[in-house]
Every structure is written in structure tokens, then in C-alpha cells.
């Protein structure tokens, strides 16, 4: 039987950077094939090559029996490609997006309806809503519908679940397995281990080369240093001071009738690592914006590092650090210039900045990259650097909004070591994440559902209370009770 994907000796370089080097593998028809590897390993380059968007320097690639160089047209009729982000038009409605993609492939929504029915029916009632107003999980469903509307035989998914909550991720994979039953070949990359395990075979790509292809169990065992780093022993946190750094009571943020944050109350102690979990659209980012002084609460009170979030937000900004899920550093400045800028904004003196910068770069082993543009760094480095910059002025609290989205397990572990170190210095860490293994690292967790906090406690307490084996199950158990899927 002919293979769905047949790659032989493909190489690709950009300038001096060798993105792919002599990559060969094949994927059988109807297989679910995983592609894993650290950032900058060449995964996206490989996807783009197979989708005929890039020409390989050397080697050949066949998709569904057609050559990616000479038979572009045939391949484009037969593949669906879902890039990690931004594959939808945010200001078109759900239905308009779908129609547009259908038209692109010379078909209609009606003709392709059967192949997308199972997925599209879940979001069809929001068909008049703009894609930009959908939650992360629903965007993924729509993007998948758009990629499937022309009934492709091969589906390429480049990190489809980055920034998506665990429940939505599970739903997406359920759909993918359903598609496999229809005979569609699926090739997907993902940084999540539970998703890796759902693949039949996975290829581990590192520095442009394939290090191994096998079943997920074998690969994860073989490269366990990277994918399954030993957990961090939570440092003994008995002597936490009892002083509250964040105190929130009955906080509400309403946009018209819609209560994005609906009466939440909690407090966080100094030096604590507080995990703020919730599904996409549960209200986490809105709550965080109120705590950091970007948004005014509709009602309720809150104090951060001793200042009122309603009136003294400019004081709060002096004493907090913030790292958003979008890149918070200036890409066109160098590493040292970014540090210098943010330190200067917080009123540090030049001499002090210089000493601290050298020490920080040494600690991060970044000294030789001091004058590199941030744009040229791999994602994981950028995130480590962004975190270090956000605590450079020794704030009382640091707010991290999905700091590790799209990063491989080994880099995430290094990131958490930095978090532990900051917490050890007495900096309170307030973090949101979609990785449930990271949730286990937190001292205390709250889980938001539909704008309310539905559970709060240490990871162990929560597991016991809900009788679940791990945080992933706790989260799924709680988030499934959500009624508000509209946002």
C-alpha cells in the first residue's frame, strides 16, 4: 500500500541556519503521526515543506503520492494545514470564515458538510459571531473545520493546542481520532506529553535531524531527559510568612450583561506560588488585568502589595512584575538593551543596572548572547529572559500569564527552576498555565469556572477532595461543569 507521506533526504537551510538536515521518514495511510522536538528543531519548516509552502534544498517529499515540488496543485487539493496560530480571519464571522476557506478550495460548505459535521455542529450556533470573539477551544474547532472543509486526505497540524485548556485539548484529540476512522492521515506536532501518547508513532526532531521514530512509549523513554525531566522537589515551604500580598474580595468585572469575573475572593501570601487555573474564557486574564491595574473592577475590593486596585493602581505598578503570554520583550532590541530599558523604567540607576545585568546574564549562561537581538533567540530563551526581566527590579509579586505556552518539557522545567528561585527570595508568583504538570508545582491553586472560583487549595488537597489521581483529572472534572461555553 502506498504511504500517505514519503520523505527522503530532505534538507533546508535559511542563510547559515540548517533548519532540516537529511530528514527521511514515511507515514502510512490513516496513521496518526506525531512530530516532537524542542523549539527551533525544524518542525514548522518540515510542515511547510510538506504543504508545498517551502521548497526543499535537497531531497524529495511525496504527499499522497504527489511530489511537493512538481505537483503543488494536486497536493494543495488534498491536504489540510492548520498552523499553530492566526489561521482564522478574526474579524470575519464563524460562517464567513468557513465559506471563505470552502471557496478557496473551489467547494462549498454544503458539499463538504458531511466531513465537518461532527466538529462544526458544536460551534454552529455561534456562526454569526466573529472568530476573534471565540474562546481558544472554539477557535481550534473552527480552524479544524476550515482545514477539513475540502475533504483532504492528509491533515497537517502544527501545534494546534498551544494556549488551549486541557478540556478543549481532549475534545480536539477526540475529533482527530474520529477523523482517523474516516481514513484521514494526520501528522501533528505538540509540546504536550498526553497528546504525544495518543499518536501511533512519533518522530523526534532535534536540530533539524530525526533522532528517532517509534511508538510514543519508546521515544519518550529513550529521550526521557528531554520529555520527562525529573520533577522539581518543591522546596520546603513551611516558614512562609503569614502576610498577605494579594487580597481580593467579591471582585466583579462585567462587560454589559456578561460577568467575565463573577464575584471572586482569595488571598495570596508572601513568597507563595499561586496557580490561577481555568479554561479558556473562564475569566483568568480579566482578573489578572484588574490585579495589575490595567482594568478597573466593576465592583468588589482588592489590594495588591498593600495598595488598592481601584485607586492606587499606579503604586501597584511600581511594585509588581508582569509577563504576558504575548512576547513582552522588544524583538528589535538586544538582550542587554531590553534589560536596561525595563530596569530604567523602574527607576534603577545605571551603575546598579550594569552590575545586576552582568550577574543575571552569567546566571542564565547568556553572557555571550548579551548583544544578540531578542528576535533571534529561541522561544524558550525568550521566555526565560522575559521572566528574569520581569523580576529584575525585585517586585513584591510577579504575574505570569501563560508563560510557558508552546515550550518543550525540558525548557519548561528550567523555567520553573527560575520561578522557585524567585519565590525563595520572597517574590510572590501568580501564574496561569494550561500545563497540569506545572499546576502540581504550585503551592496553592485556584480553578476558575465561568468567572467564579470553583475550587482552591494545595494540589494534594484538591486531588483528595475530588477523588482524582492527578491535577489533569481534577481540572477536567471541574471544567466539564462549565455552562458558559459561549466565550
Amino acid at each position, binding site marked *: 500500500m502506498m504511504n500517505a507521506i514519503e520523505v527522503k533526504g530532505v534538507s533546508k537551510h535559511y542563510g547559515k541556519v540548517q533548519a532540516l538536515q537529511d530528514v527521511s521518514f514515511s507515514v502510512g495511510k490513516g496513521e496518526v503521526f506525531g512530530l516532537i522536538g524542542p523549539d527551533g528543531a525544524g518542525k514548522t519548516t518540515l510542515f511547510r515543506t510538506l504543504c508545498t509552502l517551502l521548497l526543499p534544498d535537497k531531497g524529495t517529499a511525496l504527499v499522497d503520492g504527489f511530489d511537493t515540488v512538481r505537483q503543488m496543485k494536486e497536493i494543495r487539493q488534498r491536504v489540510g494545514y492548520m498552523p499553530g496560530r492566526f489561521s482564522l480571519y478574526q474579524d470575519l464571522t464563524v460562517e464567513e470564515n468557513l465559506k471563505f476557506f470552502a471557496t478557496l478550495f473551489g467547494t462549498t460548505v454544503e458539499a463538504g458538510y458531511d466531513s465537518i459535521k461532527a466538529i462544526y455542529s458544536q460551534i454552529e450556533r455561534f456562526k454569526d459571531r466573529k472568530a476573534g470573539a471565540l474562546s481558544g477551544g472554539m477557535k481550534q474547532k473552527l480552524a479544524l473545520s476550515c482545514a477539513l472543509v475540502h475533504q483532504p486526505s492528509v491533515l497537517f497540524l502544527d501545534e494546534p493546542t498551544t494556549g488551549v485548556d486541557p478540556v478543549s485539548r481532549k475534545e480536539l484529540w477526540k475529533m482527530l481520532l474520529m477523523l482517523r476512522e474516516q481514513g484521514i492521515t494526520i501528522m501533528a506536532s505538540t509540546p504536550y506529553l498526553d497528546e504525544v501518547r495518543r499518536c501511533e508513532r512519533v518522530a523526534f526532531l532535534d536540530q533539524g535531524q530525526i533522532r528517532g521514530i517509534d511508538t510514543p512509549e519508546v521515544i519518550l523513554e529513550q529521550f526521557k531527559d528531554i520529555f520527562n525531566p525529573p520533577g522539581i522537589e518543591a522546596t520546603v515551604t513551611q516558614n512562609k510568612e503569614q502576610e498577605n500580598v494579594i487580597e481580593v474580595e467579591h471582585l466583579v468585572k462585567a462587560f454589559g450583561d456578561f460577568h467575565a469575573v463573577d464575584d471572586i475572593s482569595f488571598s495570596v501570601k508572601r513568597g507563595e506560588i499561586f496557580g490561577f487555573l481555568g479554561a479558556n474564557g473562564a475569566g483568568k486574564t480579566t482578573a489578572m488585568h484588574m490585579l495589575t491595574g490595567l482594568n478597573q473592577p466593576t465592583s468588589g475590593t482588592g489590594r495588591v502589595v498593600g495598595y488598592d486596585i481601584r485607586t492606587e493602581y499606579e503604586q501597584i505598578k511600581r511594585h509588581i512584575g508582569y509577563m*504576558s503570554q504575548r512576547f*513582552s520583550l*522588544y524583538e*528589535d532590541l538586544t538582550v542587554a538593551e531590553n534589560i536596561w530599558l525595563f530596569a*530604567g523604567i523602574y*527607576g534603577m540607576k545605571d551603575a546598579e543596572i550594569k552590575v545586576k545585568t552582568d550577574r543575571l546574564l552569567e546566571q542564565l549562561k547568556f553572557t555571550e548572547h548579551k548583544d544578540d537581538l531578542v528576535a533571534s533567540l529561541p522561544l524558550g530563551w525568550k521566555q526565560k529572559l522575559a521572566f528574569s526581566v520581569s523580576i529584575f527590579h525585585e517586585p513584591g509579586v510577579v504575574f505570569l500569564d501563560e508563560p510557558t505556552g508552546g515550550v518543550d518539557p525540558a525548557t519548561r522545567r528550567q523555567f520553573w527552576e527560575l520561578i522557585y528561585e524567585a519565590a525563595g527570595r520572597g517574590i510572590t508568583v501568580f501564574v496561569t498555565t494550561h500545563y497540569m504538570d506545572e499546576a502540581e508545582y504550585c503551592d496553592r491553586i485556584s480553578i476558575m469556572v465561568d468567572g467564579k472560583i470553583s475550587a482552591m487549595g494545595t494540589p494534594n488537597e484538591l486531588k483528595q477532595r475530588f477523588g482524582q489521581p492527578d491535577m489533569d483529572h481534577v481540572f477536567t472534572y471541574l471544567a466539564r461543569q462549565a455552562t458558559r461555553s459561549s466565550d
Partner: protein
Amino acid sequence: MTLKYLIRKEFLQIRRNAFLPRLIFGFPIVIMCVMPWVMNMEVKNVVVDVVDNDRSVASQQLVHNIEASQYFIFNGQKPTYQYALTEIEKGQADVVLVIPPNYSHDLVEGRKPQLLIAANAVNGTKGSIGSAYLSQIVTAQVMPQASAIQSQVSTLLLYNKHQNYKLFMIPALLAIVMMLMTGFLPTLNIVGEKEAGTIEQINVTPVSKWSFILAKLIPYWLIALFIITASLLLAWAIYGLTSAGPIWLIYLLSMLLALFFSSLGLIISNYSDSMQQAIFVMWFFVVCIMLLSGLFTPTRSMPDWAYLTTYVNPMHYFIDAIRTVFIRGGHFAAISHQVFALLGIGLFMAFWAVQSYKKNH
């Protein structure tokens, strides 16, 4: 103090940009070396067809006069008026002069011969001015006494004696420089930060509104000052044109115009979420402001309702004032009215700009 760090950041980013530094140096050169030659409303090279039905010495004389004029290109004699008209239709000629059969005879008899001038007025200025020049030449021959009367009237052209169009256009070009450098660039810069998401990071820091806004404006103001200085130097080096009035007034006026355009840009960037929207809205206002300002056309010939808008059009005050200073050598007293108007409009817009920038919603 944080201002220092923010401004340095802006300059670093401008320098890193592949295109901006070249633009900053290329801009004054293009504006000063190319535009004054192009933005010229003198009518020259009008193509004339002559249909000479007389073929006398007198009519030959007239044709020679036309040939000798620097404003006309003589396109030869045509057999008939119809033939000449088809040439106009094809765009090969602009004006036709028809000399009647008894031209020289009538001239000698002392009767006034009737000549016909037909001009293609699709390009109105060229048509009307071209035919006016032509009738001057004709009048001079047909009625020497009439042109003698004309020479009795002495027209004194004040300030710009040679009606040098370059002298007239250079101040207007300075206005365009200010508009682009202090209006467009900061706006696009801020919306760019919005799109990249870095503005959120700045909004959670203790940077004050004022520092943020000033850090965005000061670099472009300095660049605009540099370009103006370079342009003035080039105007002097290439055309020998210098300001008749005090140079500090030119800088003062430019800075006041910069205040207005920067504020306009900030307001637009505060209400725009995408580059596309910001550019389009900015263009809309800029085109309206320019066309209603008297930069290219005299404002007095606008209809009344349009003329009323010039009272709130800062470009109108700027153009008026800078031409007064640059060409006439006016001092502060001569332009105080415009300076205060510019200042008023600028402060109003600046207040609005700062109000509409919100770090906290």
C-alpha cells in the same frame, strides 16, 4: 528620569529599522532637489497649431513672434481649422490660432481683423493661460496702441519679484515634511506596539502617560528638526534661496505644526487597533487638511462654506505665516495672529490626545 531610557529605546529601534534611517537622510534631498522643479504652476511649452488663411507678410510676422516665444512650441502651419482640431483631439496640440483670409488687408485698412484662438481646456490652467499668452502676442501686433496702454500700467510685484515658484513652494514643502515625520511615524509606531503586544507590558509598569507619549514624540521631533535644517541648507546651496525673515520663526512655526500633527496622530492611534485603520484615518484627515489649507490653491477662491474651515485648519495658518516669514521677511508681529491660532489648536489636540490615552480601563 525614565524618559531618558524610553527615548534611547526609540532611537535604538529607529536605528535597527532597515528602512527608516535611509528615509531620514533621503527625504530632505528628494524634497529639496526634485520637488521644487516639479511642483511648478508656470505654463510653458504650449503646443500651437497655426491655420494661416492669409499667407501675407503680416501673418508671417505673427507666426514668427509665436515661434520666438519661450512659452510656445510652434507645431507648424495646418491647412484647415478642422485638421488642427483633430490634432487637438489626438493630444498633439494645445492651442489653435486661426488667421482670417483678409488679415493683412484689414490691418492696413485700419479695420480690426478677427482672429480665432481655440484652446484645449481639459487642463484648465494650461488652456486659459496658454490662450491668454497667445492673445497678448496677437494684440501686440494687431493693436500696437493697446499694448502701449498696457505698458503704461506698471505692475509692482512685491516681495517675490521674479515670481519665483521655488521660493513659493519651499515653505509648503517644509509643511509636508513636518506632517510626515511628526504625524505619521509616531502614530504607526504606537499602533505597531499595540499589534506586537508590547504596549501591554509598558502599561503595567510605572511609566507615566506623559513619559510614554513624550518618549514617542521627542525622537521624531528631533528628526523633523534635522530634516528642516537640512532642507533649508539645501535650498540655500542649490537655489540660493534663504529666508527673508528671522530663521527662529521658521523653527517656531514648524514646532507648533509638529504639536498639532503629533497630537492628531496620537488621538488616531489611541482609537485604532490596527495599522490599516490608523493609516487610513490619518490619510483621510491629512488630505483634507492639505487641500483646504491653501498649500496648492488660493483659499480666497474657495466657496464660503469651505473657506470657513480654514479658521480651524492649522495648515492654513502655518502656510500663511511661513510664507510671510520666508518670502516677505515678516517679523513676529506680522504673524502673531497665526502663531496664537496654531498654539491654540495644537494645545487643544494635545489635551485630547493625553486624555484619550488610557493605561487603566
